[in-house]
């Protein structure tokens, strides 16, 4: 088998002499500057991309299939922002009658509906008899593929 390193020749560095060079206080420009140098610090930080309010952001695990139409599948991880105002059409984590659930919020004139996104399930109208709070708004969903 051919040794792939065989074509590389090694040289000893020479340490024992010095040359005085003029000092350029603006820095030395050698050749064409890499346009990428200005962006060296930047890398993708998903925390920054996905989480706008870190102090108000929590996670929740999806169990069930009533929201598959919105892309929320069993086992997915929800990113929930408690600081956001719940609005008509937003997907929110709600606490209803002792359980957390996630549904799309629909606001009518005088009623609030929890809308599933799966034909197997029916919309649920929230009434005064329900123990109900909107816990937070879902901003992203993370799934394992």
């Amino acid at each position: 088998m051919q040794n792939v390193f065989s074509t590389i020749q090694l040289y000893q560095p020479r340490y024992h002499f010095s040359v005085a060079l003029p000092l350029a206080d603006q820095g030395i420009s050698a050749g064409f500057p890499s346009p990428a140098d200005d962006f060296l610090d930047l890398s993708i930080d998903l925390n920054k991309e996905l989480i706008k309010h870190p102090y108000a952001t929590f996670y929740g695990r999806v169990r069930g299939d009533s929201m598959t139409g919105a892309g929320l599948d069993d086992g997915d991880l929800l990113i929930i922002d408690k600081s956001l105002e719940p609005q008509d059409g937003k997907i929110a984590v709600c606490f209803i009658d002792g359980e957390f659930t996630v549904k799309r919020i629909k606001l009518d004139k005088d009623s609030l509906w929890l809308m599933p996104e799966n034909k197997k399930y029916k919309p649920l109208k929230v009434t005064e008899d329900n123990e109900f709070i909107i816990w937070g708004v879902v901003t992203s969903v993370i799934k394992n593929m």
Partner: protein
Amino acid sequence: MYNKEKSVPSLLERLRERPMELFALVDCNNFYASCERVFNPSLRDKPVAVLSNNDGCVIARSNEVKALGVPMGAPAFKYQPVFEKHHIHVFSSNYALYGDMSQRVMNTLSQFTPDVEIYSIDEAFLKFSGFDYYKFEDYVRKIKATVDKNTGIPVSIGVAPTKALSKIANKIAKKFAERTSGVYVMQTEEQRLKALKWLDIDDVWGIGRQHANRLKAKKVFKAFDFTQLPDDWVRKQMSVVGLRLKKELEGQPTLDLEDVANKKAIATTRSFDKQYSDYSIIRERVSSFAISCGEKLRRQKTQCRLIHVFLRTNKFRQDLAQYHRSTVVKTEYPTNSSIDLVKYAIKALDRIYKPEYQYKKAGVIVMELQPENTEQLSLFSKKNPKHHQLMQHIDHLNKTIGRHKVKFGSQDLGRVWKMRQERLSQRYSTTISESIVVRV
């Protein structure tokens, strides 16, 4: 000259022109119980109690539990029938959760002012300059609403021109919550006097039981009576600290926000899961507590000069021989090296340990703290400079690969000491596998 016609501003006017500083004390209501409720909203109107380490005694109570007459510090085993009878929801303390929720509250507060002093896990002083007093209440209500929205934790906020008065304003906000809805701004002289005449001397911030008793003997029963004492007497009896407090209550600010790290002492104390008398077991526990104090010291970049160690038997087992001793060892130099701390803690332990008793609790408290960098150089110091580096490496490793992965020889390497936490809730906000489950 035209400015001759202008009158010289009175003292009062000049004071008014001075930018007004205001202090707010933000206090989370029944903090631990409230944390549990955030992730279990059906507990909102139910009685909730949280137990200390090892499920020993009640350390946090929701208002419902307070109303049922369960006192702070109630031993859990004694109150078990009460818990059951009134369906009190009891939790082991979940410090991962409470610590994270505390940080969220504090970070939310710091969006409203750069001047925040975190006073404890559930309390913070905020300082504001240059606000219009009358519009200020709206602003404070907004702070309360934002903390509530971001974290789900209800807070009470008291505002006043001094820290000591803000503490009282907070008490009023909390005590009369139906009227104040959790926010009280003390803005007039009339309000200040009314508050001082209402507040018992025992409840004044910074007045300990001994001073309170001495003051009561002098017919000082209310905070107001205290402010009527002559300055000289207060200074003589209660030192300049007492005098400062008096000025604060009179409305003159003498206390500014303090740096977070200015703690007076750091303690690591635990009840054991059962009773032990074996020296090697007690020694291992005391070593671990000393190491934990070292970690806390290094985290806040301070060193200690004194190490206090105590040992006690089970005080609820009066049928057994009782023993409670403590001792203090002075270090040769200020240190936060775990190696040094263990050495001194064991030295202290050896002075107080007696083999004939069954021990239930031990603790290590480090005192006389000073910042790391103010150390005096001593030619003859026996301090080993390598410790500093070694500790840095150990702290780094424990931070990156997991808590207590790197241990010292004096710690039990095989055994896992577990706290009794039979009613622990999940670490909802800090561990992804324990986040809330959302059924869809």
